[in-house]
């Protein structure tokens, strides 16, 4: 077996273009997913039983169905509701919705595990549940959450490759395009693996820096 180095050389800059798209989608979806997930997680610890129930149902749905199906539902469903956003935003929204559910579970687990005395002390100075979550429990939970959240962001980044099925021109899709025209699948898939691995290594490193920078008490 010989490696077609010419294709590899040609593919490197082309795949970089796809990488930019992957990073764009992943960072947008991570931002929306984290924000949404933290909000959902806090709601599931909050004082409204009906809202807790809704979040529960949402998380169950997301966990109980394949991401690929969720992507199709968003892609074909949004236009039916009158939103013609195109495949880029359909992809961002699908991944955000998926990520938010997993983040909500992490937030619920971590914030809910803060020692009970903290809640009691906050209640004793007249705080209501919302304020307790926001000012007392959440700030103490950020640091212990970082490793689990990093995991989710890594998963999210890898999941962007599924958007190739709705023809978002991200990293995997750009590789498939090269394979289609040059037929060098092994070279290209190996290159794709290296690209993803490099991106995720950087992510893990950033997460470790953040964890170290955050104060511990």
């Amino acid at each position, binding site marked *: 077996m010989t490696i077609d180095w010419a294709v590899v050389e040609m593919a490197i800059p082309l795949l970089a273009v796809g990488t930019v798209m992957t990073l764009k989608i992943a960072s947008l979806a991570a931002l929306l997913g984290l924000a949404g997930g933290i909000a959902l997680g806090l709601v599931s610890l909050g004082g409204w039983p009906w809202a807790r129930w809704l979040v529960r149902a949402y998380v169950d749905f997301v966990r109980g169905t394949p991401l690929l199906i969720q992507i199709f539902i968003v892609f074909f469903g949004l236009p039916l509701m009158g939103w013609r956003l195109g495949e880029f935003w359909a992809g961002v929204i699908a991944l955000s919705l998926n990520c938010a559910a997993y983040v909500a579970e992490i937030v619920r687990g971590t914030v809910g595990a803060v020692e009970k*005395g903290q809640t009691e002390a*906050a209640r*004793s*100075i*007249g705080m209501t*549940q919302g304020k307790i979550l926001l000012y007392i429990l959440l700030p103490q939970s950020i640091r212990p959450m970082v490793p689990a959240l990093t995991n989710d962001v890594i998963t999210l980044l890898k999941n962007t490759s599924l958007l190739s099925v709705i023809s978002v021109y991200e990293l995997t899709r750009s590789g498939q395009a090269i394979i289609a025209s040059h037929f060098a699948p092994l070279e290209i898939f190996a290159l794709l693996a290296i690209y993803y691995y490099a991106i995720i290594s950087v992510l893990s490193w950033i997460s470790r820096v953040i964890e170290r920078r955050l104060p511990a008490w």
Partner: protein
Amino acid sequence: MQGLRKRYGEREILKGISFDVMPGQTMVLIGPSGSGKTTVLRCLNYLEAPDDGTIELMGEPIGGAHIGEPPRWTPLPEAQLALQRRKFGFVFQRFNLFPHLTAVQNVAIGPRKVLGLSREAAEARAAEQLARVSLAEHMHKRPSQLSGGQQQRVAIARALAMDPRLILFDEPTSALDPELVHEVLDVMGDLAREGMTMIVVTHEMGFARRVADKLIFMADGHIVEEGSPEAVFSAPREEKTRRFLAHVLHR
């Protein structure tokens, strides 16, 4: 407090507790562990909801109200409860300071987020209360940088900053090293002299004797004996009280 009852599952912890505390009084609750002293405090500010009985603070029923015709006891919603709770300060055995905040922020967060003071005003009030418990120079330390005695004094300042009608102390010195106990008791003694209304659960008999206006001895969910500390300590009427006092005083 009238006829307070509380059960956890099968076990009845409080079997009808009634007492009055007058403004400015310091009432001390003593008794063997498991007698329900802590539960009394936790029911007073509704950290636990009692199963039966009523609590009134300056004529206002706590935790619910008699609403409708005929009047029926209706528990208050959480937001209303929170409003009532801030009239009670609570000092916990294990301090329960907020570890992510400095001493001054621990004290200021109540005035700021609950009373709606500006950050400057809240921190000024916090600094004042910290000075009152002699911690002005430790304002900007986090709880983990403070000794147990200092932490408990921050907790007292945190309660004071809400300008409560009374403060409940739940074994405030039990988690402290013996040499740090006095600094917390001194602060509490000062508060009592300044006319703060206090209900204190403690095993510090010396403190009870010196500071209490009224002493209650509890056992098995009942009030066994109450009176002035002099009366209870020197001439206990009940056998249970005598045995308990003999045990704790001759350790």
